């Protein structure tokens, strides 16, 4: 089936800035993370099906499937975050700035991008500390005894990559804002 791209007035082409050099490398990395998250999600589907069949046919579900589902979905959705920004798909309100000049929009987007860069970096740093806290305390999950810091590694990488992606687009918007080009 053909793919449709929804054209919304004033929206930018998400692929234009990631075709070469650094942008291309970023696109490969972030897409790889999203596909990894997708595979985790598919694994979650497979695990649930096997667990249900096991429970129904042999009254033997997968031990700790509930715990695993929580870990897997947390990893999957956070690994999706940078890809969504790469596609410029995180939601914003463009109603009030619809009539603004392109230059003003570039400046506003640069400021927004900077906020995203900083906040994602803070999250990555705090999650990293949360992860090392977990390593030190040796806390494990209730049924399976898995170290609780394991899934944190995915979140740290995801938020770090989100920050980098945001930084990349911030620099692009800033250059365009300064040069005044469209």
């Amino acid at each position: 089936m053909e793919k449709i791209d929804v054209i919304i007035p004033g929206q930018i082409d998400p692929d234009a800035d990631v075709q070469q050099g650094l942008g291309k490398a970023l696109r490969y990395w972030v897409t790889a993370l999203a596909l990894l998250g997708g595979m985790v999600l598919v694994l979650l589907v497979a695990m649930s099906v096997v667990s249900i069949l096991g429970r129904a046919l042999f009254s033997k579900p997968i031990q700790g499937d509930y715990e695993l589902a929580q870990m897997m979905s947390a990893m999957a959705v956070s690994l999706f975050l940078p890809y969504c920004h790469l596609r410029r798909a995180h939601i914003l309100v463009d109603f009030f700035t619809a009539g603004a000049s392109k230059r003003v929009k570039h400046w506003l987007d640069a400021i927004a991008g900077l906020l995203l860069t900083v906040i994602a970096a803070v999250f990555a740093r705090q999650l990293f500390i949360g992860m090392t806290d977990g390593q030190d305390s040796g806390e494990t999950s209730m049924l399976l005894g898995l170290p609780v810091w394991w899934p944190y590694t995915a979140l740290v990488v995801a938020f770090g990559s989100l920050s980098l992606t945001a930084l990349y687009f911030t620099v692009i918007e800033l250059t365009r804002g300064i040069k005044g080009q469209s």
Partner: protein
Amino acid sequence: MTGTQLGLLMLGLMLLLMAARVHIAIAMMVAGIVGYATLAGWGPLLAHFKNSAYARYSNYELSVIPLYLLMGAFAARGGLSKSLFDAAAKFIGHWRGGLAMSAIGACAGFGAICGSSLATAATMGRVALPELRRYGYSPRLATGTLAAGGTLGILIPPSVALVVYAMLSEQNIAKLYAAAMIPGIVATIGYMLTIRIVTRLNPSAGPSAPRASWPERWRAVVNVWPVASIFFLVIGGIYLGWFTPTEAAAVGAALAGVAAFLRGGLNGKEFVECLLSTAESSAMIFFILLGADTLNSFLALSQMPAELSAWVRNLGVSPFWVLVTIIMIYIILGCVMDSLSMLLLTIPILLPIVLGLDFWGMDETSKAIWFGILALTVVEIGLIHPPVGMNIYIINSIARDVPLMETVKGVLPFLASDFVRITLLILFPSISLWLVKLIN
């Protein structure tokens, strides 16, 4: 400064940032961060950030969301939407406006295996628009029908928005699904009646298609079995106690994937596309969830929702007018914001107000369920009215030759039907609550 004043100030800051093109999630986070740090200091805030993202994202109830989206992505590739439309068209396509009604019916059917309004509009638009145009339907009616029909996806279970509401209001998702079922059917019938009225006033807008024979009809019905069985397992399985909602969503995703593969709609490349579109739409939702989480941690600390609720209760205004005001707020917000952001932003503040007032002597759970269905119905309207009605843009990007204004005009009769339905839901809470009581 009191907590409530700080809360209002931060909400103002957040709206200002949103107006200036800051991502909705980030605007919520900035307001939450500044407010939280002012009340409790930076130390506790940074400590909160060590776990908040994992705590939010590992929520078992929320894990159904990416699974629903994956299921929807698979279902869209498997031609399931086409078989739904064909089956409906074989039965009622020969009525005046019958093909448009079939499209509404198919939207409702697709909404039953897809948790998202936008995906329903996009998928059904691609299938039904060319058919409607082929039989000479007016572009206005055709595009208006599909844009409106897409909103059925948000109400008819499974629904991403209801899962989010269940989390915010701490209500049981199975009860909310039961509550949404009849309002969803009422919406479907309302839209069909709208088409009936439109085509009565202007018969050339929706000419009838040739009548199908009974063998043709049965063949078309048989083709719908994957949709029927997925819906039965995903929703029915929850009530029969077979699965948790997350397991049910996983089974649904697996079945939709198998169905798409068997129908030749899912090779390697398309599988990757499904994963990536799931990634994009899941992340969109979960980023706002994290933003709302940060904002709500601050709001809870500020006591603002509780104080605001007490203030409204002491005003002595009749609950009915408070409710009307809330609905007006939703309609205004719907002009600039998407439905999920609206729910996440307003429910923590507005639900305590509603729960603090008396509506026909309902108990707390009933009020929360009834208000949830009402809020969902109202926010979905934002999808089909300008300026940010996403469904309008989606349909318009499929039917490129139809001017945007035609689609907007085509949606108006359906908006009227929505307002009638909202009035009914307010006046007769049993439309939402009857089935909930029945399954208890």
